[in-house]
């Protein structure tokens, strides 16, 4: 694949980066990234990956745009209220960058469809808001040997880790979903909209680093930040031998749909 003159102009700020160059940009243009959840995290991630020229972006979300989403889900605009999130996001991506092929999955990610959807992608971004989905994404990616970026936000804080095959997974840290009544739901706890942008763009950067092979991923590390103090730090992790999924004696051998009790899908 050779970059066209138009592409050389469009991606010139990537191409002049020594670590990326024309070769790295071609890798980006040939890459396929799946974004699960087109909300607070998925929206900024999708905007930056589209602008970067990721060749194929898959979007998974069964929900429609609600007015309460607009405070942070920056890919959706006021006239999109009531529109499927994947369609709203696809329309913006097409306007940002016609180089990008967008595949939409207007459904939620479940144990039934997970492995089929994942199959064609190089990297997965977890932009979901609930623990059943987060554990399912982790389990499916570990089983399918797909690298992915986990992201979580709450109030003024965020956390993210990147998993690549053979390294610490989300379950190595968090064994199983928290008791449903123990977790403040997103609608109860709230979140500063810009926090979603901070974390979603970190996830997009991890995807681009993975695709281009630049730098060190957040593998075997968890980045935690608190925007109140603006403290960022990374905690070292390692593969946990007692992980129920990737440990020495795995108990989980098939995908699980946990009860959706944590974050009410409609009001969340």
């Amino acid at each position: 694949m050779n970059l066209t003159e138009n592409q050389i102009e469009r991606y010139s700020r990537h191409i002049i980066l020594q670590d990326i160059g024309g070769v790295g940009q071609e890798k980006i243009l040939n890459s396929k990234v799946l974004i699960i959840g087109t909300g607070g995290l998925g929206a900024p991630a999708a905007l930056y990956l589209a602008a970067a020229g990721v060749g194929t972006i898959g979007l998974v979300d069964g929900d429609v745009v609600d007015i309460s989403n607009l405070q942070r889900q920056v890919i959706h605009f006021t006239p999109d209220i009531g529109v499927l999130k994947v369609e709203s996001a696809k329309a913006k991506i097409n306007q940002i960058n016609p180089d990008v092929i967008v595949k939409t999955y207007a459904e939620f990610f479940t144990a039934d469809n997970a492995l089929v959807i994942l199959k064609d992608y190089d990297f997965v971004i977890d932009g979901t808001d609930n623990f059943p989905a987060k554990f399912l994404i982790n389990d499916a990616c570990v089983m399918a040997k797909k690298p992915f970026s986990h992201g979580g936000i709450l109030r003024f804080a965020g956390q993210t880790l990147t998993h690549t095959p053979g390294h610490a997974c989300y379950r190595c840290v968090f064994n199983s979903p928290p008791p449903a009544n123990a977790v403040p739901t997103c609608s109860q706890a709230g979140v500063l909209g810009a926090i979603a942008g901070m974390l979603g763009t970190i996830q997009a950067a991890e995807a681009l680093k993975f695709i281009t092979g630049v730098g060190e991923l957040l593998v075997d590390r968890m980045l935690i930040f608190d925007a109140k103090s603006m403290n960022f730090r990374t905690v070292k992790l390692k593969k946990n031998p007692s992980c129920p999924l990737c440990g020495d004696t795995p108990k989980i051998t098939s995908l699980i749909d946990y009860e959706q009790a944590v974050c009410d899908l409609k009001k969340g």
Partner: protein
Amino acid sequence: MKLTLNGQNETLENETLTIEELLKIKDVKMPEMVTVEHNGEILDRAAFATTAVKEGDTLEFLYFMGGGSH
């Protein structure tokens, strides 16, 4: 004893302490919402009550965070 907790140096008056007691001292209201990494090892939740914290230990409290899509 002196500890490193979430990257910060802490001095506690206690001379002996379990993980469970430390969570109480640190006012962690919902221990079921926290994973504890003790000197680089993720602890089994069942071991919170029996695992002793020692001088110079490094601990991380890692919280569940959802958020994102909706």
